[in-house]
């Protein structure tokens, strides 16, 4: 995706967001409650229009095609880390914070180290790292700062 189409996409997204916000404010009892959302909607319609026009018009839009904002992103690795992050959130309420932190640290560290040659050593290194880091988090948050976390299956 080029910067040009990303800008057009952002402009359209702002229009959709404005329409949704305007629709939501129609259900409010007091008109003053909807003032800020409506002002924001108006700004998004205006700024969305500027973005779309500037990028559709060839003279100003064509230079934007030379840039690809997502061109360098390793999507597989990125998606794996994002999925681990989402699962960390889910795991925190199901199996426990520190348990899911351990799994998260191991998984993401392994994903980041996936290009390394000695896989066996990497597995052990990441296991040890996850254990030490989880212990450090436990010591810092639960022991020293005394912040209560929900009970997990182990801690």
């Amino acid at each position, binding site marked *: 995706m080029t910067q040009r189409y990303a800008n057009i996409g952002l402009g359209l997204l702002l229009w959709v967001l404005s329409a949704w916000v305007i629709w939501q404010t129609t259900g409010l009892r*007091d008109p003053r409650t909807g*003032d800020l959302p409506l002002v924001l909607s108006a700004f998004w319609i205006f700024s969305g229009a500027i973005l779309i026009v500037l990028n559709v018009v060839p003279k100003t839009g064509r230079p934007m095609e030379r840039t*690809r*904002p997502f061109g360098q992103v390793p999507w597989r*690795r990125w998606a794996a880390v994002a999925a681990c*992050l989402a699962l960390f959130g889910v795991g925190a309420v199901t199996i426990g914070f520190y348990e899911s932190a351990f799994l998260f640290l191991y998984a993401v560290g392994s994903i980041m180290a996936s290009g390394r040659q000695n896989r066996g050593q990497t597995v052990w290194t990441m296991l040890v790292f996850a254990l030490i880091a989880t212990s450090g988090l436990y010591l810092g948050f639960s022991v020293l700062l005394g912040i209560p*976390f929900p009970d997990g299956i182990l801690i």
Partner: protein
Amino acid sequence: MWEGILAGIQGVLTLEALWVLLAGTLAGAAIGALPGLSAVSAVALLLPFTFGMEPAHGLIMLAAVYTSAQYGGSIPAILINTPGTSGAAATTLDGYPMTLKGQAQEALYLQLFAGVIGGAIGAVILIFFTPVLAEWSLLMGPAEYFWLALAGLAMVASLAGKDILKGLIGASLGVFLTVPGQDLITGESRFTFDYHHLIGGIEMVPVLLGLFAVASVVALVERGDDTVAPLTPRPGVIRYVLRRISRMKLLLSWTGVLGTLVGAIPGAGASVSAFVAYGESKRISKKNRSEFGKGAWEGVAGPESANNGVVGGSIVPMMGLGLPGSGSAAVMFGALTVHGIIPGPRMFEERADIAYTFMVGVLATIPIMLVVGLLTVRWSSLAVKAPLRFMVPVILSLAVLGTFSLRQNTFDVAILIGIGLVGYLLAKIGVPPIAMALGLVLGTLIEQNFQRSVIVARTDDMGLWEYFFSRPIAIVLMVIAALVLLSGIRQVIREHSDSRAQNEPAGDESVSTGDGGAPEVVGDGAAVGEGTTRTREQGSDQ
């Protein structure tokens, strides 16, 4: 006054007081540096430890914690583009680019010395000018707050990132995040979808952590098994930094005073003062204005001086009027009342010894913070050499646990992750996360004070604009907001004309950037890489 100051100095120069100062400084800096745990959290977490102490010592400890937490919050801002406190957000704009250029140590020493200078200025103003400043802060009404917040937003929109339109879009999206919840004037719920977690609104810390910690660190995933940044240790780095700072005397003094004055406005906050200071630093630094956003030293020094000057300033309304000017000041207000002391003008008559011991304690923290900083900078800068396979999961885990520690609420964790991923994607296409963050911080201030202005104008039988133009401070702030916006628009037009003039003769289509300018490392997008430069043949995703 002088007897009170002498009593304060005597109160601070005892062995017990010095131990308490040292402990508070170390704890405050460490907690402030943790993403998710702000200066308020640091003060609140350590408050129970002060109950068993003498009132003066308890207050000295809290003063030390508050001061050093503001300093500590800038360390991760510089090293990993993640401010530990909201006041350090402006530091990311040039602090992180300095790290990426291998100047992490220089940036940390610069931050330390600038913070010491700003903090000292704030503490001195606090000691000598509290009554005067307290009266001044009373002049701020709804109109002034409204235009101050708009001026702050205009500044961040035009200073952060390359495109003022996208900066304003980011700011407006941040303001929108303050919409869900109960309207504080009308009491009606909006955009809550009957979900009880949204009735109180979206918490600020998960959003800030998402925009900075998660978005920045997720961007580091692109680099695979690398390190955060190179580190080029320079022999004699302290002398080098001091030499360069000696050329910024005017800048540091002015931004320190500015930070203190803005901090004295109840509710204005460290983030507003840091951005105002950033704008001023850019204005003052005529010779290297183009370097801002790419690792300009003034872009770190100015905000840091203001960020630490805010400490003294925010205590002014608490001591002078009995009105806590910030969250941390509110916690200290609570600490004083626990010890049977009511802050306010009468405190100077009835318990002047405690009042001045507390204020002198703020000043006494500064040299201790300097020593602690000098001893730890070399070690903390080594963090940038840690492999990303260790750094990325640790920082993300800290962000999640830090977010949960706020309210023990998993909804906040969901906000953190969601906003983090969306913030990353928006930053990639040029919407600066820092603009969104400031929009969130200032959104409530803008809306509430706009509504209050309408009410006041109606009560005084005036039109809204008539009311705005009847307030001199509001007029000044209006003009500042307009000038900042116009300056940002003019900058964009100038850059656009320059790039068209450069591109027209060669017409080179193989290498270019999004807006025709040279590739830039922008403070808030440095790790994200807004507008990646590619050749047409290399466009495939991995």
